[in-house]
């Protein structure tokens, strides 16, 4: 495999890692998961740094990655401590609890409750059963799995 193709592969992997991290960072509300997503973005960047370092025959990339790992370790300690404190204060890991920095005249973001009461009355379309009708699972009928 030539050097350019190797670099491209590495870069693609790094970009994927970074992208997954970014999407996770935007979409998740659990602080620990957000933190993990951030770490993932960091690793994506580290992979591309290593790739570039190898490509250029320059140890700077590798060195920087080691450095990033060190910093990330420290940062993890601090971040987890902060998360722990926030959890103690808020009683939840949900990031949406912490919106105090918004402007005074901005409405707070509130979760829209998923309507629950109507479920029983709702008629769900049913496929015509085929074969032997299975025993209805009572547990499954009365209890809706948590989202």
């Amino acid at each position, binding site marked *: 495999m030539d050097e350019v193709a190797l670099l491209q592969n590495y870069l693609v992997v790094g970009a994927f890692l970074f992208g997954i991290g970014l999407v996770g960072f935007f*979409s998740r509300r659990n602080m620990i998961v957000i933190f993990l997503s951030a770490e993932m973005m960091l690793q994506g960047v580290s992979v591309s740094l290593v790739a570039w370092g190898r490509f250029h025959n320059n140890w700077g990339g590798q060195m920087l990655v080691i450095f990033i790992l060190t910093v990330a370790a420290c940062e993890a300690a601090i971040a987890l401590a902060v998360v722990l404190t926030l959890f103690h204060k808020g009683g939840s890991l949900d990031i949406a609890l912490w*919106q*105090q920095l918004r*402007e005074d005249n*901005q409405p707070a973001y509130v979760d829209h409750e998923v309507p629950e009461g109507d479920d029983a009355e709702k008629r769900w379309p049913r496929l015509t059963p085929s074969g032997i009708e299975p025993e209805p699972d009572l547990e499954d009928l009365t209890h809706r799995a948590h989202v």
Partner: protein
Amino acid sequence: MSGSIPFLLILIPSLPLAAAVITAVFGRSMLKENSHRPIIVALVGSFMASLLLLSQVHHRSASSEGVGWETTIDLWNWVRIDDALATPAAAQPVPEQGMAALPPALPFRIDVTLRADALTSIMLSMVTFVASLVAIYASGYMHGDRGYWRFFSYIGLFVFSMTMLVSVSNFVLLYVFWEAVGLCSYLLIGFWYEKPEAAAAGKKAFLVNRVGDFGFALALFFIWTTYGTLNFHDAEGIAGILGQTRLAQPEVYVGGGIATAICLLLMLGACGKSAQFPLHVWLPDAMEGPTPVSALIHAATMVTAGVYMVTRCTPLFMMSPTAQTVVALIGFTTACIGGVIAMTQTDLKRVLAYSTISQLGYMFLGLGVATLGGITAGMFHLFTHAFFKALLFLGAGSVMHSMGGVIDMRRFGGLRRLMPTTHWTFLFGCLALAGVIPFAGFWSKDAILAAVYERGHEEALFYWLYWGGVVIAFLTATYTFRAFFLTFYGDERVPHEAGHHAHESPPAMTFPLIVLAVCSLLVGAYFEFTHGFAEFIAHTPSLAYEAMHAHAGAHDSASHVLIGAIGTVVALAGIGVAAFLYLGDPTEVMALRRLLSPLYWLSHGKLFFDQIYDVLFVWPLRMLAQISYWIDRNVIDALVDLVGRIPLVLAAGLRSLQSGMVQFYALAMVWGIVVLIATLLIWPALGASWK
């Protein structure tokens, strides 16, 4: 002993200053009820030094010839600005004097220089003497006051300023200490600042004085541009305004319109400080201050600063006969106004205040005569007046002290048995003020009237002023003894505020009264018979002016005796009228009051000066202030607020971005980076296409 004059000159002001600083720093925490001690020690020390200085100056002056005797000490140079003014013609030295020609531009310099001459040493002795006695008196009078230390600190500061005022040798420094005594006056009038009347009176005194000081400042500007220096004495080859070089050559003084303008503006300053018409309105209100202050500042010393200044500037006034006539007329008008208003006032201190105004008017009348006799008589009256007016005020304070703060003569009476010492000393003061032979006031007032009368030979105006002066002397005797009889004679009445206080004042207060009473009896006669005062003061360089001696006519001793006789008769008549009206049955007073009801109304209303000034100056200024306030609130503030709202409006859109959601911020950041990178990528392409 010759070397001690500089030492004494520095010592006299520094002692009160040091004491004032000590009292101000340690008074509250350590000295407390002993705050009077450093001040009294310093003032007595200053007085002793002044006496030494006086004797030395007297010794030197007696042997001097020509344009008098003076000595100056340069302490330091305060300001020096080179090439400040193109040399005016009047600043060029006289060729005969052999002085080098001046450069084309003169430096502006303020030298801190003290001077000793006859006028200064007399003023220093008088100020420190009265101040020492008043400080001793105040240690009894102010006893128990919360601001005891503050009071004495102010007194020390005042004496420092006043002694500096009379001993500096530069117009700017004169102005500085002129303001400093004004400040002390303000602080002491408003000493009981929690009392609204006292605070208002202090403010009024300060503002009215400001009008006069404005004129004084303009006069200084004129003097500077005309003569190119502000020093009294010759310094660094530039002939001082009142220096030996110039005095020996009177023709180098500038005459005409400029001289008149300078003198009238100086007189405006003197009017403010010495409470002359039309700026006399502050002095009666100044009686809101503690009585020792009224005695020291508003009767004996500070208000005479104007008289001192005009006397000091005699050579300038000599160049403008118009200004001299104005001085005489202002003095006469003020004497009339003061005398008329004092007739009907019911507040003992206020009677004395108007009498002070009236007597200051006499002094200016004397100065306006513009002969050596007139000016020395004016200064002589200043000197004797200081003793008996301080005495009268301190006596009034003693009455006030024992009456529990009541000073309205309608509420007490017949106090002669309760307060024998105050009664007798007050009587001495009244006799001196009324001008009864042989008390001090007789000699000085007589000297002024004689000078006015002699000038009347040349100008008919002064003849009329003389007779006017005689009438005022009659008024003086009447209102003085009216106050005396109302306070000390008749049925014994004591206001309920007095409580168990109604007795003679403590020795600390009666001792100064006795000393001053003796002085009121003796100083006039002593100086009259030794001819010491006029001769001594004529050795002041300003007064040893050649042109003045030409003015002085032959001393007409026959008419002098006649004038003295008229004065005595008038004074006795005034006392007689007062005795007739106010001893015993008050029906005559009532009858007279009905007979002269318009006059009574005018006099009792203080000729309505306050109301007239209210309408003419205070209300328009208030309205202007209201309008300015409105404009400030509604136009200027509105503009500023408008500018302040612009960012607010601009920010309203951006505010919605601040949602407080962490993910949103992260998204914004990523979008920002995306936009930046996109720009970086696209921009060179765009730039290349444009090229």
